[in-house]
C-alpha cells in the first residue's frame, strides 16, 4: 500500500504540516486539515470496519456526518479512548490512533464474518421467532450469545481526562450551516443590524460550493468557489456577526432553543488536551432561526452495494477537489441524475479513468454534454446487478434496463473498477426543522420531504429547503431572507448566476435485478445490515407503518440514525404497499442531529458541581473537630464527632449520655426560618397549622404541625411569637423551601385578602442549640445580664439578649426533652458564637453532638421526625397527636381530609413504641412487624421507623407504625429478619421522662 493517492494539488490542506497517525497499529501520514477518512483514502485504505449484523467488510462511503460505515475507535486504549467516531468527521492530529470496530481478530479476518454465511436463516426479526425452546437454554446460551454480539466500539473504562463547559447565547438571528446560502443569509442579517450568529460544523466555511471548480457554475462571471471565497473574507470583517466553526447544532427545541456542540480540542493532539476543555455546549436562544443545513446525497439500492470502495458520488468529488485525494484509479459512476456528472468531470480533469452508468435513457444537461465532450463513456439505461470484491470492490456487472424500468434485460457486462461512486439524488436535511415541531410536505417531482409549516420564528433556505441548483439557491435565499428579516440593506440584488439545470430525472428506490430479491443483498442501512428484502419481509408479516418497519428491521437505528437509509425505506414501503409516498409520513427525527457526548451535555456539573453543597456558618468548626457529615437535602450536617478512634455507635452513645448528664450542643442552623409579619399573621397560622395560634402570648413558642390538603403530615416546627403581628416560624431542614413556596401559594392565590408578609431568614441566622441539665449555667455565663429564672424565662418562651453588643434571639425550646436553649445570631457571628458556647461550656464538659445523637435523644422522648417516622401516609391522629388537632377551628389545610372514610378508620397504622425482649438487641430501621409468622400470606402490620440503643435507658428502643397500634400496647409482636425473628412488645412511644420533669431540671 505504498501508492500515494494524493496526487492532486489542493489549497485546503496545509502541506507544510505533515501529520502521522496510526490506524490498526500501522503508521500513516496525512496533512493538517485532513479528516481521518481523507487521510486513509490518500493512503489507499478503504476497509474500515465490519457491519453490525453480518460482519461484512465496509469502507468509507461519505465525507460527513451521514457516514454509516467508517466508524472507528480512536484515542488508543487509555482514558482518551472514544468509540464509534466517524472517520469522515474526525480531523487527524499528530499521534492519533484509530482502530476498526466490531471485528475479531482483525478487520481483514473477522470470525464474525460467519454471520454472513448464515444470513439466509437470520432475516429481519429472526430473534423474535426463535431461541424460545428449550426455555432453559435462553438463560444459559441464547441470551448470553446475543448479548455478546452487542455493540460496535468499546466503552471507555477510565474517567474522562478532558473537561466540558456550557455557555448561553442569545441572539437576534441564528444561522445554521455555513454553505453558500448560510453565508448569504449571515451577510444579509448582519448588514441589517441584527446580532447574528453563524454556526458551521466544519473547520472552515463554504459548504460544497467552496470547492466547486466546474466552469459551468458561475456567479457574476466568476467561478462560484472564487466568488464565495471572497464573500467569506468579507463576512469575517462584519460587525454584529459571530462565526462558530467546528460547531454542530444537536437539537432544535421549541421556543427557538437550540443546543450546539462546539468542538475545541478534538482536532488537537492528546498531549495538549489533558484537563483542558474539549467541547462546549452552547444553549442558544435565537429570536429568529435560519436553517441552511444542506442536503445529503442518496445512495442507490442494488445487489451488493455495500463493498468497500462504494461511495457517494459527491463525496468522491469532495475527496478530489477539496482533499486532493482520488478514491481509486479506475472509477465507475452509477447515477440516476445529473449531479454525479460533476464528479465524472472532476475525475476526468485530473486524468483519472472514469465511466458512467446511468439508469436514465439520456439527459440534455450541460453537465452531461461536458462529460460527453471529455470522451467519458456513458452506459445509458443500465443498472448494476452485482458487484464483486470482498475487502475492496473489484468489478461490477451491469445490465440494460427494460423499457419500463422495472426489469433488466439482455446480457450482463462486467466492468473492472476499484472505486464505485453512486448517486441517487438528494435528500434535504430537515432534521432540525422537524425537531422544532415543523411539519413536512412531500414534493413528488424529485421525491423529497420539504419544510412546510412551523410554529416558531424560523425559515429554511438553500438545499435543505429543496433548492438544489445554484441559481435557485441564491435567488431564493436572498428573497426569503429579505422577507424574513425585513431587510432593507441587500448587497446581492444584482447577482448574475449561471449553472446547469437538472434535466430528465428518474428515481427507482430498489433497482431491478436479474435474480429474485431473495437471492440478492441490496443494502439500505449499511451499519445495521438491513436490506430491501428485510423491508419487504416486514411488510409481508403485517408491519405496515413506517415506524413498525423501522423497528422490526432496525433500519435507520444505527449511529447515523438513518440519514442514508430512511428515504429508501419509505420509498420501498410505499411502492410495495402501492400508496403515495407523501401519505406515509416520515419516521420521527429525534435529537440529537449527530451523537452528542454525555460529558458535553453535563458540562462542568460533575464532581464538586454535581449538586449544590450548602454549609452552615459553623461548618469549618465541625470539620476541624473531625465531624462526620450527613447529607440532608443539599446541606452538609454534622452527623457525629468521633473521638479517639470511636465508631459511630460509640460516638453517639457518648454524645447522648453527655447531653443528658451535663450539656450538649447542636448546630441547628439548617432548620428553615420564615419571618411572618402582618395584621393577619395569627389567622394565617391558624389556617396553615392544625392547632390554634391566636391566643399564643407574645414571646411564647408553640409547636405546630402542618398537613397537606390530603390530611397527611407535611412538616413541623416551633413558631415563636415575636410581637403582636410578628412570628418566626421554623421548618424542617429538608422542607424549608417547599414550605415557604406552599405558604406563598396559599397567600397569593387562596387568601389574597390576608395581610401577611413572609420572608425567609434561614441563612440570616446561625443557631446553636444547647441542652442538658447544665445548659442554664452555660447560658448564664454567656448572657450574664439575662434573667434565666424559670418563671421569667420558662420553657417554650423567647427572649432577646445581647452578646458583645450583638443581638441574639434565645428560644427556650427542646427537641431532646432536656432543659434547652436555642441561640440565634446573625450568621456571620455563628462560628464565633459556637466557640464561645464551647468555651463557656468547657467546665460542664459541653459535648458537641450531631444529627444522629439528636435523632436518638428525640426518639427517647417519642418526638417524631417528619419524613422518617412519617411517609406521607400518616395523619396526626395516626401519630397519636390528637392533642394538636384543633377541634374548634373551622378549617385548616388538610382538615377536611381527616374526615374521609379511610382516614377515620380506627385500625390505621399508628405510631407506637417497640421494646425488644432482649434489651441489647437493636431493631433494624425499616424492619417489618407481624403478629403471626406462619400464616400465609404473611400479614405485615407495620414497620420500624426509628431504632437506637438508648444509653440513658440502657436498652434498645424503637418507634414504629403498627396497624391498630393504639390498641396493641403491651402485646407481643414479631420482627422477622432474614436469619432470625426478634420478639418485641408494643409500648408507649415516650420512653424517657414521660412527665417532662427534665425540661425544668
Amino acid at each position: 500500500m505504498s501508492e500515494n493517492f494524493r496526487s492532486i494539488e489542493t489549497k485546503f490542506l496545509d502541506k507544510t504540516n505533515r501529520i502521522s497517525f496510526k490506524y490498526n497499529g500501522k503508521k500513516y501520514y496525512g496533512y493538517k486539515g485532513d479528516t481521518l477518512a481523507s487521510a486513509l483514502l490518500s493512503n489507499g485504505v478503504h476497509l474500515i470496519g465490519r457491519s453490525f449484523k453480518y460482519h461484512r467488510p465496509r469502507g468509507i462511503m461519505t465525507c460527513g456526518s451521514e457516514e454509516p460505515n467508517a466508524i472507528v475507535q480512536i484515542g488508543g486504549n487509555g482514558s482518551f479512548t472514544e468509540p464509534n467516531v466517524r472517520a469522515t468527521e474526525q480531523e487527524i492530529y499528530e499521534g492519533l490512533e484509530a482502530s476498526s470496530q466490531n471485528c475479531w481478530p482483525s478487520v481483514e479476518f473477522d470470525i464474525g464474518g460467519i454471520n454472513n454465511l448464515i444470513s439466509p436463516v437470520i432475516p429481519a426479526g429472526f430473534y423474535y421467532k426463535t431461541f424460545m425452546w428449550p426455555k432453559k437454554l435462553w438463560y444459559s446460551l441464547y441470551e448470553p450469545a446475543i448479548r455478546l454480539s452487542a455493540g460496535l466500539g468499546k466503552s471507555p473504562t477510565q474517567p474522562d481526562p478532558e473537561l466540558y463547559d456550557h455557555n448561553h447565547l442569545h441572539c437576534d438571528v441564528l444561522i445554521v450551516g455555513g454553505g453558500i446560502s448560510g453565508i448569504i443569509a449571515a451577510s444579509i442579517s448582519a448588514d441589517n443590524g441584527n446580532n447574528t450568529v453563524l454556526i458551521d460544523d466544519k473547520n472552515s466555511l463554504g459548504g460544497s460550493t467552496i470547492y466547486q471548480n466546474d466552469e459551468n457554475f458561475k456567479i457574476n462571471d466568476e467561478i462560484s468557489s472564487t466568488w464565495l471565497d471572497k464573500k467569506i473574507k468579507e463576512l469575517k470583517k462584519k460587525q454584529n456577526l459571530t462565526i462558530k466553526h467546528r460547531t454542530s447544532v444537536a437539537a432544535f427545541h421549541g421556543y427557538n432553543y437550540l443546543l450546539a456542540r462546539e468542538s475545541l480540542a478534538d482536532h488537537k493532539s492528546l498531549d495538549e488536551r489533558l484537563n483542558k476543555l474539549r467541547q462546549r455546549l452552547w444553549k442558544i436562544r435565537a429570536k429568529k432561526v435560519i436553517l441552511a443545513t444542506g442536503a445529503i446525497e442518496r445512495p442507490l439500492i442494488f445487489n451488493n452495494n455495500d463493498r468497500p470502495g462504494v461511495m457517494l458520488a459527491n463525496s468522491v468529488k469532495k475527496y478530489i477537489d477539496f482533499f486532493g485525494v482520488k478514491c481509486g484509479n479506475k472509477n465507475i459512476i452509477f447515477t440516476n441524475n445529473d449531479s454525479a456528472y460533476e464528479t465524472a468531470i472532476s475525475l476526468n480533469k485530473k486524468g483519472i479513468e472514469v465511466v458512467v452508468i446511468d439508469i436514465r435513457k439520456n439527459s440534455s444537461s450541460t453537465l452531461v454534454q461536458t462529460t460527453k465532450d471529455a470522451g467519458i463513456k456513458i452506459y445509458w439505461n443500465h443498472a448494476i446487478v452485482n458487484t464483486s470484491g470482498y475487502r475492496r470492490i473489484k468489478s461490477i456487472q451491469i445490465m440494460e434496463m427494460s423499457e419500463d424500468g422495472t426489469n433488466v434485460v439482455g446480457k450482463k457486462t462486467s466492468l473492472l473498477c476499484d472505486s464505485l461512486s453512486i448517486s441517487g439524488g438528494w435528500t434535504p436535511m430537515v432534521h432540525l426543522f422537524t425537531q422544532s415541531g415543523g411539519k413536512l410536505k412531500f414534493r413528488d417531482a424529485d421525491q423529497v420531504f420539504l419544510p412546510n409549516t412551523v410554529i416558531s420564528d424560523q425559515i429554511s433556505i438553500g438545499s435543505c429547503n429543496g433548492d438544489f441548483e445554484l441559481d435557485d439557491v441564491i435567488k431564493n435565499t436572498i428573497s426569503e431572507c429579505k422577507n424574513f428579516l425585513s431587510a432593507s440593506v441587500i448587497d446581492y440584488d444584482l447577482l448574475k448566476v449561471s449553472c446547469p439545470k437538472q434535466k430528465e430525472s428518474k428515481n427507482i428506490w430498489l433497482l431491478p435485478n436479474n435474480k429474485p430479491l431473495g437471492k440478492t443483498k441490496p443494502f439500505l442501512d449499511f451499519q445495521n445490515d438491513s436490506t430491501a428484502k428485510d423491508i419487504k419481509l416486514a411488510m409481508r408479516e403485517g408491519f405496515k407503518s413506517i415506524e413498525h418497519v423501522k423497528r422490526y428491521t432496525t433500519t435507520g437505528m444505527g449511529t447515523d440514525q438513518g440519514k442514508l437509509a430512511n428515504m429508501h425505506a419509505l420509498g420501498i414501503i410505499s411502492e410495495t404497499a402501492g400508496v403515495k409516498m407523501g401519505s406515509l409520513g416520515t419516521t420521527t427525527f429525534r435529537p440529537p442531529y449527530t451523537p452528542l457526548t454525555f460529558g458535553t451535555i453535563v458540562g462542568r456539573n460533575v464532581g464538586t458541581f454535581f449538586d449544590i453543597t450548602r454549609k452552615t456558618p459553623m461548618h469549618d468548626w465541625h470539620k476541624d473537630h473531625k465531624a462526620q457529615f450527613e447529607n440532608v437535602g443539599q446541606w452538609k450536617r454534622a452527623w457525629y464527632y468521633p473521638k479517639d478512634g470511636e465508631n459511630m455507635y460509640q460516638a453517639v452513645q457518648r454524645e447522648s449520655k453527655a447531653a443528658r448528664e451535663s450539656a450538649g450542643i447542636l448546630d441547628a442552623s439548617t432548620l428553615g426560618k420564615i419571618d411572618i409579619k402582618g395584621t393577619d399573621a395569627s389567622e394565617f397560622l391558624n389556617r396553615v397549622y392544625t392547632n390554634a395560634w391566636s391566643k399564643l402570648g407574645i414571646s411564647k413558642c408553640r409547636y405546630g404541625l402542618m398537613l397537606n390538603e390530603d390530611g397527611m403530615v407535611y412538616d413541623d416546627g416551633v413558631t415563636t411569637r415575636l410581637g403582636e403581628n410578628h412570628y418566626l416560624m421554623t421548618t424542617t431542614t429538608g422542607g424549608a423551601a417547599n414550605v415557604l413556596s406552599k405558604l406563598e401559594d396559599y397567600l397569593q392565590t387562596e387568601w389574597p385578602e390576608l395581610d401577611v408578609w413572609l420572608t425567609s431568614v434561614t441563612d440570616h441566622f446561625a443557631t446553636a442549640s444547647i441542652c442538658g441539665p447544665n445548659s442554664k449555667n452555660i447560658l448564664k455565663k454567656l448572657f450574664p445580664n439575662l434573667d434565666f429564672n424559670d418563671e421569667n424565662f420558662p420553657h417554650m418562651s423567647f427572649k432577646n439578649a445581647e452578646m458583645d453588643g450583638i443581638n441574639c434571639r434565645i428560644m427556650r425550646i427542646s427537641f431532646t426533652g432536656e432543659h434547652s436553649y436555642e441561640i440565634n445570631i446573625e450568621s456571620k457571628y455563628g462560628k464565633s458564637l459556637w466557640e464561645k458556647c464551647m468555651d463557656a461550656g468547657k467546665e460542664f464538659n459541653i459535648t458537641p453532638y450531631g444529627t444522629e445523637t439528636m435523632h436518638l435523644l428525640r426518639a427517647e422522648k417519642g418526638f417524631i421526625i417528619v419524613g422518617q417516622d412519617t411517609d406521607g401516609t400518616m395523619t396526626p391522629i395516626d401519630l397519636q397527636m390528637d392533642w394538636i388537632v384543633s377541634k374548634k377551628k373551622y378549617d385548616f389545610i388538610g382538615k377536611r381530609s381527616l374526615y374521609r372514610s379511610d382516614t377515620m378508620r380506627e385500625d390505621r397504622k399508628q405510631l407506637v413504641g417497640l421494646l425488644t425482649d432482649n434489651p441489647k438487641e437493636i431493631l433494624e430501621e425499616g424492619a417489618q412487624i407481624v403478629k403471626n409468622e406462619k400464616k400465609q400470606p404473611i400479614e405485615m402490620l407495620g414497620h420500624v421507623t426509628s431504632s437506637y440503643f438508648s444509653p440513658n435507658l440502657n436498652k434498645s428502643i424503637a418507634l414504629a407504625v403498627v396497624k391498630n397500634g393504639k390498641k396493641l400496647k403491651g402485646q407481643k409482636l414479631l420482627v422477622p429478619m432474614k436469619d432470625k425473628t426478634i420478639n418485641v412488645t408494643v409500648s408507649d412511644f415516650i420512653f424517657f421522662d414521660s412527665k417532662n420533669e427534665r425540661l425544668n431540671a
Partner: protein
Amino acid sequence: MLNINYPKIEKKEFPNLELNLVEPIKKLNLRGKNRDFFTKAGRILSIMLPIEPNTSATIKNISALWLSPDEWMIYGKDIDKNLKISLDSEISKLNLGSVTDISDQWLLINMKGKNVFEVLSKGSPFDINKFKNTKNVVVQTLLNHVDVILHHTDTNNVDLFVRKSFSEHLWLWINDSSSFL
C-alpha cells in the same frame, strides 16, 4: 468579642475580571403595597422605591432593588441601626408593610471587569445582553442552579447577591468558570 466569619471568599483576579467580597454590609427586605408604605419608605430612605420591574434606585450609598411589585431589597454602607429603627417603627409597627433585616441572609460579591458578563452567561439562562448596556438593572435569576440577585451598578460592574449557605459553592463555581473563559 464575637468575631465575624464568612465562607472562604477572598479577593480574586482573572483576566478582565475582579471578584471581591463586600461584607459586612446591611441589607433589608421591604414589603408593602399601599401608598402610605411608599411614602414612608421613600421619606425615611430618601429614595423612591422603584416600581418599574428589574430596576433599582441608588442615592449616595443606599440602593433599593426592585424584587417584585411588593418587595425590595435595600442595601448599602449608609444603612445603620437608626434607619432600621425608623423603618421598623414607621412601617412594621404601623402595619404598613414589613421590614426585615436580611444582612446575613445574602452575601454580596462584587464582580467587575470586561469579562463579568462572560462568566454570568455561562451559568445563567437570563439574556445578559438585556442588561449589559443598562445601568441600575436588577435581575433575579439562577446562576449555576443557585438563586442570585444581580445588580448592574456601573459599566462592567455587578453586585451579586447569593444566599449565604450557597455562597461557598457558587464561589467555587465562579472561580472555576472564570478560569475557562
